[in-house]
């Protein structure tokens, strides 16, 4: 038998729908994605203008635009997004810039008997595949979205198909390694973030 009667959770009244997350893809310098609410599709674009390290975390600031199902776009500059966590990429790694004195985290084993096989996508072959950001609390009405946007997570997928995005994936990966890896290296992080800002500002 399917779908027998369940008890609706106690106290579960009809509250405003909460948007938990939006998936977006890095295209050149911007994260472009979409989400669906009440059967209507909205488009989201987040264009970071600036990156910085704040309290040991990667923080972006930029223009957030949401286009509703009727094509009406609403935007706001200076929207902040703080990196919560990341997901390691698997497969072909982007080119990684080097900073003196900084080694990428993960394993790379050698023994006295010679070099042992390594694990794919670790150490020098590692990179970031997704960055999970938390937007600052957003006003849904201001963006024309009838939902609770107080804690929206941006699932920022790094799968570049253009050179700018590929460059940024390498830089974001390096900055994350420096800030969130086993050994935090603030100097290296500052260098990588400086490079990110150079690329973001080059538009």
């Amino acid at each position, binding site marked *: *038998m*399917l*779908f*027998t*009667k*369940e*008890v*609706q*959770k*106690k106290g*579960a009244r009809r509250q405003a*729908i*909460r948007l*938990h*997350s939006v*998936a977006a*893809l890095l295209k050149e310098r911007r994260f472009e994605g979409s989400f669906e609410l009440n059967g209507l599709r909205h488009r989201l674009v987040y264009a970071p203008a600036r990156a910085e390290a704040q309290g040991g975390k990667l923080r972006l600031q930029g223009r957030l635009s949401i286009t509703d199902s009727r094509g009406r776009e609403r935007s706001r500059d200076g929207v902040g997004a703080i990196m*919560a*966590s*990341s*997901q*390691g*990429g*698997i497969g072909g790694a982007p080119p990684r810039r080097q900073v003196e004195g900084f080694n*990428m*985290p*993960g*394993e790379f*084993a050698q*023994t006295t008997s*010679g070099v*042992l*096989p*390594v*694990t*794919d*996508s*670790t*150490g020098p*072959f*590692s990179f*970031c*595949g*997704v960055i*999970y950001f*938390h937007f600052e609390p957003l006003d849904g009405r201001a963006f024309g979205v009838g939902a609770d946007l107080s804690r929206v*997570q941006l*699932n920022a*997928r790094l*799968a570049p*198909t253009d050179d700018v995005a590929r460059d940024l994936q390498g830089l974001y*990966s390096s900055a*994350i*390694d420096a800030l*969130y*890896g*086993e050994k935090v290296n603030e100097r290296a992080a500052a260098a990588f973030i400086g490079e990110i800002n150079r690329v973001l500002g080059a538009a």
Partner: protein
Amino acid sequence: MARQKIYDAIIIGSGASGGMAAKELTEKGMEVLVLEAGPPVNPARDFASHRWVYESMYRGFGPPGWKQREQWMQDTAGEFSRHFYVKDTEHPYTTEPGKPFLWVRARIVGGKTLHWGRLSWRLSDLDFKAASHDGFGDDWPVSYAEISPYYDRAEEFIGVSGNRDGLPHQPDGKFMSPMRLTCGEQLLRKGAEKTGRKGIVSRVAMLTDKPKPHMRGRARCHYCGDCGEGCDVGAMFNSIASTLPVAAATGRMTLRPNSVVRHITVDTNTGKAKGVAFVDRVTMQEYEVFGKVIVVAASTLESTRILLNSRSRQHATGLGNSSGTLGHYLVDHWGGIGASGYFEVLAGRDPINEDGKATGLFIPRFRNINKETKHPRFIRGYGFECGSGTYSFPGFARNPALTPGFGTEFKKRVRRYYTAPVSMTTRAEMLSRFENYAEIDPSGVVDAWGVPVLRIHTQHSDNEREMAKDAAEASEEILRAAGAVVLSTGGRITVPGRIIHELGTARMGNDPKKSVLNKFNQCWDAKNVFVTDGAAFVSSANQNPTLTILALTMRACDYLVDEYKRGNL
């Protein structure tokens, strides 16, 4: 207000373990609710095992870029099977920089049984008592003698094709007729034997003989070769064809798809589980259901995620975590190391269709079985999964070492070597270590339904790397002994998760201070909670785990029902 229904048991998950639990418990008279996070399955619509790639404008590769955009971790998903798998855009998880994990997940009724590899091996006491053998880690709280009757029952119910090979560390079972080896696989077997190893036919959960009376609706395998796209004749074991129909026929199973479990709810007075809170995947409506027993079978990491998210006053760090081991001892088999080449003696022969056979040659573990085979640089062992034959698409044509150039000469070489490729790849044990673990992501990352996600911490150790070096050398040795021309050897060890045999994180044990479950998969901290999937494993061995999961589930259900009838739950 209507009275709330209280089920005898709520089962979370409808895959190998969940489906088997549903069958066992309903057959024994229990009223069961199965909660499945994914959508329902319509085999006529959803299975594509008889669909040719040329029926799609994308020729089986799917719309350009789909995988990198939406399902980048779903390694085995293809154009015709991608609906079996989660969308990574909706199902995040996080990892430490430099330590990736590849998490392949199905979310559909039937779970990973819809596309699994079907290899079905028994563990032996070399595996259950590995710690006694080599001093590392912990023994399982069960022995082969205790599990063997359940292996018998599992094999007889699902149907496993294989040969009785007489290897104590690869125990024989109750088999249907073995699939035959191709010419190349026979050559490879001879090569293995020349080097002192054994080569045996892989054992697979597929019907190769007339279905037994209880296998209603299932048919013998007709070698179409597209098992991973959904078997629409029920020749391979999956929940849809095998366990769920039996459970449904009892009239005591309710199956609710689209039910994303948030956590198990707990009676604040007793600390026992009382039900499950879930959200409808489609409508986002919240629900709570009640049951006297909860069986957690959502697949290793999802089960542990649910337990970790089930915090309460009595279970402050997660349900079942008084030992502090919930989430720890995560393992996955590893591969990626091996050798490939071709048999010149088979080149240029008339091609025959050899890709319908969904199995190949297996070279069982030959290291660290006894004193004579003890290796000085690593413990435990590995086997080789091997194949040779003519496949519908000549994948080797991408190898410039074998088919260089282009144009007429390239085509001639492809046609010549079409019938001759051979490859060996490792399936190896990863040591169970406390420091490989999963936790709820501390930074608050959630999935599309607002359920906190896992942060996974894993890396290989020198034991795996030394084993990989040995495996690379051994595979080349065997290939050469078989008379093959070797084109490539070695490789990189696969990222943890890639083999899709993630195990551990809610391990069984004899000591409640060092484990989450007792020897019957029963949670030490909440006796009416059972975890019956791969999360319960103490170690991975090198054998594929699903048959052991099925056997453990059957055994746990026998115990559960007995305890339930005695009023002990």
